[in-house]
């Protein structure tokens, strides 16, 4: 199969949506946090914890939707912790986020090891099955039918968040908090509360992105499985210029690239070392950052703590 033919296969496009799903969740979560002025570098750890919490819930007898709910709740708890440290105390968002990532990942591995002793093959769960939604649509039917419920959820969340931020009073309040919290306060809004809400909800979305990995893309949990997807999401937020619709687009574009390189790897893996293919997604993120950073309209109060009565 030639490199171009691969682009027109059902298998490629079905996997694009699958690869994009955790990125959609993660990017939307990070975007929501940044829109109110909080950089959440805890994302990598929160995704890891979500992956572990969702998987463990199902492994110990819960159903899949309970697993997703537990993952989201766990993410919310981490979001609350991040908000306490960065919103209430106003600590460095960079260092706090990294601390949460280090803690989130290591405590996930620890809890996983406590619950599941070392075995030859990692234990598995019954993951989400393809829904078969939209199978009748000509052309793209098989691609849509191969997707699982969380993928549809991710797309729905993107649409909902786009509508919420652009078209509702709450969205306006959230955006205002990220641009100028003092002005928001002057309007009778509570910037602290808005920041807490957005960081908690955003972190819950990140955890759902992690949970997709262990509950739909794969059916088991193993350490380091998130593999920098969280950092890619942070880059995608810049690429999206802080807009949910473009976050969706960015995640799908990125996934297309990733799925394509995976297939090229199987076709041309003999001639070129596989590590070069694996490097491409990370290089692409850096290139996207460099290209978009010039044009980006960063939320004006990003990384600035808000303290009542001080300027």
């Amino acid at each position, binding site marked *: 199969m030639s490199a171009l033919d691969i682009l027109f296969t059902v298998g490629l496009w079905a996997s694009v949506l699958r690869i994009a799903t955790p990125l959609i969740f993660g990017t939307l979560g990070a975007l929501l946090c940044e829109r109110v002025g909080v950089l959440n570098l805890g994302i990598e750890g929160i995704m890891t914890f979500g992956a572990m919490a969702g998987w463990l819930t199902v492994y110990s007898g819960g159903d899949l939707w309970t697993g997703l709910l537990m993952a989201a709740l766990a993410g919310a708890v981490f979001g609350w912790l991040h908000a306490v440290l960065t919103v209430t*105390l106003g600590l*460095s968002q960079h260092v706090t986020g*990294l601390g949460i990532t280090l803690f989130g990942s*290591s405590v996930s591995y620890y809890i996983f090891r406590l619950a599941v002793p070392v075995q030859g093959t990692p234990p598995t769960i019954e993951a989400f099955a393809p829904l078969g939604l939209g199978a009748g649509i000509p052309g793209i039917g098989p691609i849509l039918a191969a997707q699982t419920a969380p993928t549809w959820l991710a797309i729905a969340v993107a649409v909902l968040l786009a509508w919420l931020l652009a078209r509702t009073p709450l969205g306006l309040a959230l955006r205002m908090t990220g641009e100028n919290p003092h002005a928001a306060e002057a309007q009778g809004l509570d910037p602290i509360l808005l920041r807490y809400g957005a960081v908690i909800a955003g972190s819950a979305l990140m955890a759902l992105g992690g949970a997709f990995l262990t509950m739909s893309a794969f059916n088991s949990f193993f350490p380091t499985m998130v593999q920098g997807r969280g950092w890619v999401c942070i880059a995608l937020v810049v690429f999206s210029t802080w807009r949910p619709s473009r976050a969706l687009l960015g995640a799908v574009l990125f996934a297309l690239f990733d799925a394509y390189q995976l297939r090229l790897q199987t076709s041309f893996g003999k001639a070129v070392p596989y590590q070069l293919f694996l*490097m491409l997604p*990370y290089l692409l993120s850096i290139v996207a950052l460099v290209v978009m950073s010039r044009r980006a309209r960063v939320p004006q109060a990003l990384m600035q703590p808000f303290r009542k009565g001080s300027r």
Partner: protein
Amino acid sequence: MQFERRARPPIWLTLGAPLIAVAVALLLAGGLIALSGAPVFEAFGRIASSAFGSRLALTETLTRTTPLILTGLAAAVAFRARVWNIGAEGQFYLGAFAAVWAARGIDLPWPLLIPVLMLTGALAGVVLLVIPVILRLRSGVDEVVTTLLLNFIVLLFVSLAVEGFLRDPMAFGWPKSVPLPADARLDKLVAKSRLHTGLFIALACAVAVWALDRFSVFGLRSRAAGAAPEAAAFAGVPLGRTLVKVACLSGGLAGLAGAIEVMGVRGYLTTDLSPGFGYSGIVVAMLANLNALGVVAAALFVAAVFVGTDGMSRALEVPSYIADVTVSLSLLAMLVALFFAQWRIRR
């Protein structure tokens, strides 16, 4: 809850913050150890004895302290100037790679070879950090994300090297690089241990960075650039040039750490040379409150946690991830403790 800035941060709280943070972290880690069903006090006893209890234990802890001092310094000098270098892990690996790669190509008499290889490693780290910092200065690209992403790229590159052009043909399929020549290995400090002379280089670096920070114009400028960039620029500090210099120092220290580790401990390059020395360096720097001499003490603590936990977890079957949990908790606790050294709750 409202906070107000303390007029004068109490000395005991500023100096005691790391101790409070470590105590809180150990307490919380104790809770997690109890969760595993292991006896908590015995566990802590075993951590202490595995880290310090014998000659061998002590040399292992100091071996582990050496790279942590250097990556801790790398983070400390960068964070002082608010250059968020999260890429020490990548710089460490590229430094180790550069040393091994250069050793194949150059033929120097014994006393020259080691310093040249170290310099090569440091230079590799410099290049890897200067690029993201220049991207930030030129295009406003957040260096946190670029340095983090570079970590993954470098690790893949090292994997490519040890499976490809640097592969040891005698290693029977095990992916590791060709060994360094004997002349390029650092001397052992204690016979039958892994402790090497790199420890002294790390300590010397700590003193040098401390002096630079304390007595040089560069030290003052880099602190000013971090604390109040606008004010510093107004006072005539060349911001861009200062930040690039900071990047050179920080990246160089992390690259040097990699070169020293590969020359001192293993003698060849693999993809598991560093169990996260770059990331732990951030914790070391924060526990030291970004003070270069404090970095030595903080590195010793972090190394002891890792070495001690290794022994404890084997004996009591507690998952060894508890070491990373303890270290990351101490980072979070340190941030909170430092906050309360500067602020108090308004009544």
